[in-house]
């Protein structure tokens, strides 16, 4: 009985050597030779079968035939014609599915150059040949199944990790075409492609496209939005467009599961919003940081594809290296392994993928780490089988061990998620792939060895412990050298030297304790007896030479299996980790600690009302329910927190008309007119500069597109609600604005090489700038007319109850939509401008074409044409004292603001700079110094006046009952260099409190110290580390000027965008 069992177990192992045919032959393919039809008919018996994440059968049988599962269950008879394989003690699982792979797809050539690399001319048009769309990054015509090739070298590591099926697509471009579900069997492509068009793919990466547009996050979003619209429009086959395969395939792919590679918490939301707009629910390929905003992830209603890559531990032993590693990088290192568990905990459906791993062979280490940090076995299993299979519509083929599905399964030594478990085999479409040979595992145990020497038969007992370890004893324990690979056996032995013998032991063949473990490291004398043989299953047979050189034969017979240790994995404790902060930045708030709106009464302060009341001495300001409730003397409110304002000054919160903080991208310079891009699409709440600017009394910032092109993007006004998400940052219900730019930046002077413009993007002169404006608004007017005519005709038909089917719907153009909004006074321009000629010209065009410049921003020569600006009705937003950094600011003067104000313009002082933004009160003070405006008027230049030009002066900019509770309490006269904000209040919520800031700083330092200690102790315990990596911060600007922002700040323009 015992013998039979071992034999079966060995048969299981040896089956591999005999199974050579693969899947059934294809009917149409001629055979070169003799037909050899087989059916791969097996019965795997006595196994623990995990049918799916929730069903486990013990002592069960799995029958497969022709690559498919025939039966799964207990009490199943081994069918006639099937080969039985005894899987006693083993576990069978469905093979995993990786929904985010590029297996079998040649790596696309990706570019490292961005849209605008200094010294390099941008590629403005698509380089793709053929009847495709205008943008090279829209590659939706690509079908993975057409370019897929079987690749055993790539399949092997995936199979070894337990995968049997993957979804492969060409990871290149913003729209990437379709993905194919393929098995990892190494067979002809015809048979391994399980579903040729299983998904459609999108991303925020241009991939191999070198085309300049889009060169920003918001440009990519705009391109995707426009393509949805264009594809819809193209359905009617507009004659002028001709054949456009890109738009054709875009539409064709819409019925498939839509997968968006977003790779980051905010990008996930950005992708999801695009989907929401066009009625698409993307499956989102996540990154590693979603745990930082898991509620927002949940709100997308998306299913996520979660990778298991974690940051490597950094070597922060040297405090001077640690100095430059930021808290959030260390925290992310600590918390990244909680990402998968965070999805599970939040009840968000997700798949797991090997994508982003530095190497597929790290899959299990990473997965186990995720489980150590809270991911459950059941969820892990589901995320690797049922969930992806269901998403892709292939659950009828793969993902569980149901009859009728493909015979894709794993055979493992035990419960799969146990650390000690080994995957022996991965069967794919009924073909066995050996991961780790189990023949040896089956051969462990004790044997009786008979050596036939000329002097007679000697007998020994062998206790085989591993492929290289055994104990051999006869009368005494012997010194041995052993190797066994499951088939071939080699054994040398010699009597143990006397001194090594156990004292008093070795009598009567007793097994010595803790001694005599024969192993390779023991040296044997040259005279040792040497045996060589072959395992024939339960018996080993061989020949050898004894110490005297005599030939001999030998046989070893299996006696009993080795004792397997009971399988009790030690339960690891969930590691101690820090908390997530909102935002995920230093000085962020922990869950539940976020500041809330309070009723606040500031007593006895100097109050700068910015209203006709002027500056009130010894007065009070009451904020209730997020709004200013009263301003005056002797106010009281029982519900309010009292703040003593004696000797202090209260002003409205500072409003920065021109800022580039808190955005993932700022410049879309890929074209000269990009009115379609929107800063709002890519706000980034994780910007430390929000907090820093609060410390300078700023409560609202107008986030502008950069000045890379004549008509830039739509701007976004935000309130500095530190800790809010991107949507909550927005200033609600304000008139939209849009950035225009003139002069050196738009003609790309900074990119000149020597005296050559090196510019191939129109325009190259201020003459061309004027024509770009004229052209843009002329097109916008034609477009407006086209829609008006369409709408009128449509209304008429509707009224007459006739079909509107004959009408051709005009193409919706997001760029022109924004320009029409300007014409219709629904969107307002803030125009980066410097010199008088361009200002005059812009005003002249605007008057001619019927639009208006709401604001001229920068406007350093505004003083030269203040009268013209006033007549046009513009506002002016300028710097106090900048000049002499480029040619067009040579005539800039610090008296500019004052002259414009005196001429009657509404004037603001802006920052355009994350550093200066926290000193805007001082910048306003300079207008008193240089131009002699009153202090009250000067303060308005950073509060009420910008509110006016942003059309929000009904809500912010002054201290008046009913306005938003955006208030600053200053330690000193607000125009003094010595003034500091003590409290910066937004909507009645204290977001900056100078005393609390000190506590927060302490917390930051403590948390840093804790993490440095943790990293150091990990290093000491052997965790591999990489050298400390300084945490650089990316800062966006107009690409207009340089500032001292510190060692770790990198201008966004210096980074290539892919």
């Amino acid at each position, binding site marked *: 009985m015992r013998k039979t069992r071992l034999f079966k177990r060995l048969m299981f192992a040896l089956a591999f050597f005999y199974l050579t045919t693969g899947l059934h032959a294809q009917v149409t393919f001629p055979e070169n030779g003799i037909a050899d039809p087989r059916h791969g008919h097996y019965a795997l018996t006595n196994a623990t079968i995990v049918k799916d994440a929730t069903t486990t059968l013990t002592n069960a049988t799995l029958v497969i035939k022709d690559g498919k599962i025939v039966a799964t269950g207990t009490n199943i008879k081994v069918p006639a014609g099937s080969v039985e394989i005894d899987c006693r003690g083993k576990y069978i699982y469905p093979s995993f599915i990786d929904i985010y792979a590029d297996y079998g797809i040649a790596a696309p050539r990706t570019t490292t150059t961005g849209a605008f690399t200094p010294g390099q001319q941008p590629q403005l048009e698509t380089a793709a040949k053929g009847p495709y769309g205008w943008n090279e990054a829209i590659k939706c015509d690509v079908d993975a199944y057409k370019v897929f090739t079987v690749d055993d070298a790539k399949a092997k590591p995936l199979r070894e990790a337990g995968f049997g099926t993957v979804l492969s697509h060409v990871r290149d471009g913003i729209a990437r075409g379709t993905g194919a579900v393929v098995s990892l069997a190494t067979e002809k492509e015809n048979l391994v492609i399980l579903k040729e068009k299983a998904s459609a793919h999108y991303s925020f990466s241009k991939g191999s496209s070198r085309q300049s547009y889009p060169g920003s996050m918001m440009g990519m979003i705009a391109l995707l939005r426009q393509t949805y619209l264009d594809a819809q429009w193209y359905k009617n086959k507009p004659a002028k467009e001709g054949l456009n395969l890109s738009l054709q395939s875009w539409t064709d792919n819409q019925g498939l599961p839509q997968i968006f590679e977003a*790779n*980051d918490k905010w*990008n996930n939301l950005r992708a999801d919003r695009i989907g929401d707009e066009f009625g698409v629910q993307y499956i989102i390929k996540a*990154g*590693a*940081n979603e745990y930082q905003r898991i509620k927002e992830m949940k709100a997308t209603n998306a299913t996520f594809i979660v990778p298991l890559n974690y*940051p*490597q531990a*950094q070597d922060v032993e040297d405090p001077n290296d640690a*100095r430059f590693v*930021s*808290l959030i990088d260390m925290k*992310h290192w600590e918390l*990244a392994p909680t990402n998968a568990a965070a999805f599970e905990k939040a009840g968000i459906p997700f798949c797991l993928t090997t994508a982003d791993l530095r190497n597929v062979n790290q899959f299990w280490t990473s997965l186990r780490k995720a489980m150590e940090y809270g991911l459950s076995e059941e969820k892990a299993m589901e995320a690797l089988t049922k969930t992806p299979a269901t998403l892709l519509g292939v659950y009828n083929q793969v993902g569980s061990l149901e009859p009728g599905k493909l015979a894709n399964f794993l055979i493992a030594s035990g419960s799969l998620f146990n650390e000690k478990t080994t995957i022996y085999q991965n069967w794919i479409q009924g073909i066995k792939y050996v991961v780790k040979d189990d023949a040896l595992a089956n051969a462990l145990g004790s044997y009786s060895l008979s050596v036939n020497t000329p002097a007679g038969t000697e007998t020994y007992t062998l206790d085989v412990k591993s492929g290289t370890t055994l104990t051999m004893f006869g009368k005494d324990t012997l010194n041995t050298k052993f190797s066994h690979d499951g088939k071939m056996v080699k054994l040398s032995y010699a009597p143990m030297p006397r001194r090594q013998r156990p004292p008093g032991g070795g009598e009567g063949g007793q097994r010595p304790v803790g001694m005599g473990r024969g192993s390779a490291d023991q040296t044997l004398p040259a005279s040792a007896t040497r045996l060589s043989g072959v395992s024939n299953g339960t018996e080993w047979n061989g020949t050898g030479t004894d110490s005297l050189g005599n030939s001999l034969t030998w046989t070893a017979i299996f006696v009993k299996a080795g004792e397997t240790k009971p399988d009790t994995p030690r339960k690891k404790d969930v590691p101690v980790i820090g908390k997530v902060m909102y935002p*995920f*930045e*230093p*000085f962020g708030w922990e869950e539940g600690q976020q500041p809330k709106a309070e009723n606040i009464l500031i007593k006895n302060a100097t109050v700068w009302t910015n209203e006709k009341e002027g500056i009130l001495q010894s007065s009070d300001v009451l904020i209730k329910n997020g709004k200013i409730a009263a301003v005056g003397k002797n106010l009281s409110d029982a519900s309010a927190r009292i703040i003593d304002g004696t000797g202090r000054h209260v002003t409205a919160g500072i409003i920065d008309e021109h800022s580039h903080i808190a955005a*993932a*991208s700022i410049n879309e310079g890929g074209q000269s007119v990009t009115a379609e891009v929107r800063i709002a699409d890519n706000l*980034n709440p*994780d910007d*430390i*500069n929000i907090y*820093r600017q609060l410390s300078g009394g700023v409560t609202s910032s107008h986030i502008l597109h950069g000045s890379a092109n004549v008509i830039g993007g739509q701007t976004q006004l935000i309130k500095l609600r530190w800790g809010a998400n991107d949507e909550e940052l927005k200033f609600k219900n304000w008139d939209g604005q849009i950035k225009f730019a003139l002069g050196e930046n738009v003609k790309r*002077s900074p990119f000149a090489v020597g005296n050559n413009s090196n510019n191939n993007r129109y325009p190259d002169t201020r003459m061309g700038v004027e024509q770009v404006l004229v052209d843009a608004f002329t097109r916008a007017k034609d477009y407006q007319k086209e829609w008006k005519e369409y709408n009128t005709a449509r209304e008429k038909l509707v009224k007459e109850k006739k079909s509107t089917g004959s009408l051709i719907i005009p193409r919706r153009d997001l760029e022109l939509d924004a320009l029409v909004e300007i014409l219709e006074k629904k969107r307002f321009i803030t125009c980066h401008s410097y010199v008088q000629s361009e200002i005059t010209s812009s005003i002249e065009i605007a008057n001619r074409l019927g639009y208006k410049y709401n604001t001229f921003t920068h406007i350093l020569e505004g*003083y030269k044409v203040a*009268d013209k600006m006033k007549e046009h009705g513009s506002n002016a937003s300028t*710097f106090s*004292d900048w*000049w*002499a950094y*480029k*040619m067009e600011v040579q005539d800039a003067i610090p008296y500019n603001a004052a*002259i414009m104000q*005196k001429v009657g313009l509404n004037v603001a002082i802006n920052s355009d700079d994350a*550093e200066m933004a926290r*000193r805007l009160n001082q910048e306003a*003070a*300079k207008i008193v*110094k240089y*131009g002699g405006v009153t202090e009250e008027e000067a303060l308005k230049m950073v509060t009420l006046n910008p509110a006016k030009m942003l059309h929000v002066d009904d809500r912010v900019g002054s201290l008046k009952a009913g306005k938003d509770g955006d208030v600053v309490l200053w330690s000193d006269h607000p*125009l*003094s*260099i*010595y003034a500091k904000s003590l409290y910066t209040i937004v909507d009645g919520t204290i977001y900056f409190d100078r005393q609390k800031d000190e506590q927060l*700083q302490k917390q930051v330092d403590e948390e*840093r110290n804790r993490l440095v200690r943790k990293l150091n102790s990990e290093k000491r315990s052997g965790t591999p580390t990489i050298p400390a*990596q*300084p*945490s650089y911060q*990316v800062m966006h600007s107009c690409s207009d*000027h340089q*500032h*001292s922002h*510190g*060692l*770790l*700040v990198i201008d966004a323009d210096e980074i290539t965008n*892919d």
Partner: protein
Amino acid sequence: MRKIFLALTLFAAMVVNAQENVLPAKPQKGLLFIKNAIIHTGNGKVIENGIIKIRDGKIEEVGAGIAVPADDVQVVDAKGKHVYPGLILPTSSLGLVEVSAVRASTDVRELGDLNPNIRAIVAYNTDSKVINTLRSNGILAANIVPQGSLLAGSSSVVQLDAWNWEDAAYKTDAGMHLYMPSMLARPRFGGFGGGGGGGGPQQPQTDPVKEALDKIEGIKNFFREAKAYLTETAHQETNLKFESARGLFGKTQKLYVHANTIKQILVALDFVKEFGFDLVIVGGSDSWQVADLLKKHNVSVVLQQPHSLPTLEDDDVDQPYKTAAALQKAGVLFAISDDDGQTRGRNLPFNAGTAVAYGLTKEEALSAITINAARIMGVADKAGSIEVGKDANIIISDGDILDMRTSNVTDAFIQGRKIDLTDKQKQLNDKYEQKYELKKKGF
């Protein structure tokens, strides 16, 4: 007719005063008194209702009870005003860079890594339009510094009222400038997605510290050979680069090392230890962490840009504002500079004012832009404070010079010469005030 005459006169006045025609003042002869002033001497003292007696460009007496003769002397009544030593901008590209974005207008960075022989003074353009705007804010001297990688050349101190650079030179070649290579691993970015979206930092390819040390070793070797060369009495061949290191060894020149991080600053100490050079750290954004070591080794610091963001996100939001106070507390000799490329140094006093808001006293902050700067630049014998025997480099302001709210420079004297405070910007202001008839409208 009268109107026309008036207009013509105004026009003429304007032409005469166009910046090109702002004449450097003639040498001051005889006695000049500044009286009724609140005198901030620059070395910590404040004299209420003080008098400064100047003779032939030098300060002869400073105090409260100095007699002003009734006869033929020049007297400036500074009643209620604040009087300060002329401010000194410790590091600047003034006169070397006119418009930074216009290549042809910049002469600030020579080719090569080893340029000890380069002299910034020879390219200093006294006709730069920027100079007069600095005078308007009280800056009367500046250290003109060449830029570069590694050894960039020597800086010179100029006074800001001169016909040409020889005329402007106040102390030539008093500083040798070494730009310390970065010892930080270079960043790598993988496109969009910020906020820890990726798999974490990538392993850098090379060790930036080793790379930097190799370069510094090259500089040290240069100085070792220069030292040996300079001990020779006669040379077979003259080596101009070695010759230009003579001042460093002779202590007539200081070594200014442009360094910000701790490692950079500590490596810079090598030049004190091995060669005995007088060391000045320029930049020094992390200098607050090693203030005591700097004090111990007699190293002075030029804080290049207090109006700056903190180095790391985790740093105190106001750290750059607080660094000066940390150095003051440790007793380090330090000066404050203003290297901002958009405003070109004119906000020097306000950078110092910010340091007051974050821990310095007003007089300490004043020292950081006057006497300390003079000491570091080796001109304290004749500038940087209102003291007997020094050049009469003096400014008069309506109010506190450190606060833009009150600062308004009404008079300025360089070596006793009362300089013309007109600048191009004031002239453009005048021009357009006339266009809009602002004065007529009561502004």
